[in-house]
């Protein structure tokens, strides 16, 4: 039996030598057939499986993960959740996601350590100030919290910023979304996996999809290193590898895969209790609960599947951080890594049908899909269960690249593309 996590079960464990814990979810071997197969055991794939079971009572479901769950971008990101986008379509999508995050620890019985510590965006020029007023006002028009900040307010929210008259990158003001923050990335993957598994979903690791079985043009199953598995419907949630999977099914996507890197410092005492994003320098950072500064960079702007960032970007991002926070100059960096992100031209996701009947996809989140995990799973599950697009996902179809109705969030996606 799976444990229910609570203060009481901790206490019970404390009194009994912590011998009552069982694995969070059982290892599964593939069955010959499923109603739905989800390819990719990142946050989006696992959330899809959970909501298939929870919202649609479809429990004969497998998540197939090539490596280990959460080993892709879900376990490599800088864990910022926010809904400060520009257009109504995106605001609806991302705020739905943030609201699901707000209730997720209780829903999954797994502490995802959501910390709504607020996000501060820095304006470094008159133009930044104007653009941010527009941005914050657009958010308010869409019913999302946003407050413009004066220079003094920024200084009090973000200690350590170089506010001197000679600052290399002057800070003139900014704006904040106070409901934004961070959540523990691994916990999001593990929480969804455990909850999905408890509802009957098979979580199958070390299982790589190498082809799609098609009958009369319909996808009816997948080929894997563990053999063929039949499926009523198949959903792809493979982030940077979306094009590879689409290629196996015989179509192309408007996606380019790039490396996006991040790094963490040695742990420090608490010194930064908000998330800071400086679009001007391309740097953004927050302090983890372990005390490390978590620093995110801009894209390595050439196609890559290498999961390692180039030193040129590491260098420029650290230069940006030091221009903002000169006091961090003696910090040592502990780790640096990259994930392969699926970038589309309008920096908005694709959630719905593919040109191949029976095959659905959730991709295109690029540099910013951790915050979108709950809604990405919710809407892909809806498409897989009903064959119809979820209303929230309607503007985010593949067809928009033909009709020209792009949802261009490049400016609000937070990272220079």
């Amino acid at each position, binding site marked *: 039996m799976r444990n229910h996590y609570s203060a009481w079960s901790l206490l019970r464990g404390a009194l009994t030598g912590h011998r009552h814990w069982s694995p969070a979810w059982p290892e599964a071997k593939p069955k010959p057939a499923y109603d739905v197969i989800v390819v990719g055991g990142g946050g989006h794939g696992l959330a899809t499986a959970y909501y298939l079971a929870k919202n649609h009572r479809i429990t004969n479901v497998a998540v197939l993960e090539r490596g280990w769950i959460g080993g892709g971008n879900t376990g490599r990101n800088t864990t910022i959740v926010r809904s400060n986008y520009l257009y109504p379509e995106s605001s609806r999508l991302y705020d739905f996601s943030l609201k699901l995050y707000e209730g997720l620890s209780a829903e999954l019985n797994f502490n995802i350590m959501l910390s709504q510590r607020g996000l501060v965006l820095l304006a470094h020029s008159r133009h930044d100030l104007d653009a941010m007023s527009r941005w914050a006002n657009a958010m308010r028009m869409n019913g999302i919290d946003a407050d413009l900040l004066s220079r003094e307010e920024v200084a009090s929210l973000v200690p350590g910023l170089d506010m001197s008259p000679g600052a290399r990158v002057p800070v003139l003001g900014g704006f904040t979304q106070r409901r934004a923050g961070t959540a523990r990335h691994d916990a999001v993957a593990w929480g969804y996996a455990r909850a999905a598994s408890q509802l009957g979903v098979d979580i199958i690791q070390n299982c790589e999809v190498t082809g799609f079985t098609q009958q009369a043009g319909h996808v009816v199953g997948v080929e894997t290193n563990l053999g063929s598995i039949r499926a009523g419907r198949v959903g792809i949630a493979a982030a940077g590898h979306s*094009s590879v999977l689409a290629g196996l099914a015989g179509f192309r*996507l*408007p*996606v380019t*895969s790039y490396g996006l890197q991040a790094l963490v410092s040695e742990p420090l005492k608490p010194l930064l209790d908000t998330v800071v994003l400086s679009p001007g320098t391309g740097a953004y950072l927050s302090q983890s609960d372990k005390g490390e500064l978590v620093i995110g960079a801009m894209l390595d702007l*050439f*196609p890559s599947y290498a999961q390692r960032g180039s030193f*040129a970007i590491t260098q420029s991002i650290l230069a940006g951080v030091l221009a903002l926070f000169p006091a961090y100059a003696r910090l040592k960096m502990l780790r640096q890594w990259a994930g392969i992100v699926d970038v*589309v*031209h309008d920096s908005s996701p694709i959630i719905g049908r593919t040109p191949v009947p029976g095959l659905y996809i959730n991709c295109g989140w690029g540099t910013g899909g951790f915050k979108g995990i709950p809604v990405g799973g919710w809407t892909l599950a809806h498409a897989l269960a009903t064959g119809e697009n979820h209303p929230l996902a309607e503007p985010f179809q593949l067809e928009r690249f033909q009709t020209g109705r792009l949802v261009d969030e490049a400016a609000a996606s937070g990272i220079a593309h």
Partner: protein
Amino acid sequence: MMRIPCIVCGLRDENEFTCGGTSHLVRPAIDASDRDWAEYLFFRDNPKGLHHERWRHTQGCGQWFNLVRHTLTHEILTVYAMTESPPR
């Protein structure tokens, strides 16, 4: 950091260059269908493997040229001029 062989200057550090994306895309005729336009503008092979791509030595001689580069290992196999057709 990659070292990229500029067709004029020879091996230089990656941060002197700008990647211009996939090479040899052919612009469709002006009366092309929406579908063909979308394919041309947005849809890409995005291969995990060899990729023909354009680079510019922006911080150097300014010249554009083509590379065949492996997107997983970042190994560069061939350099050739903008007007040359892709090597076999």
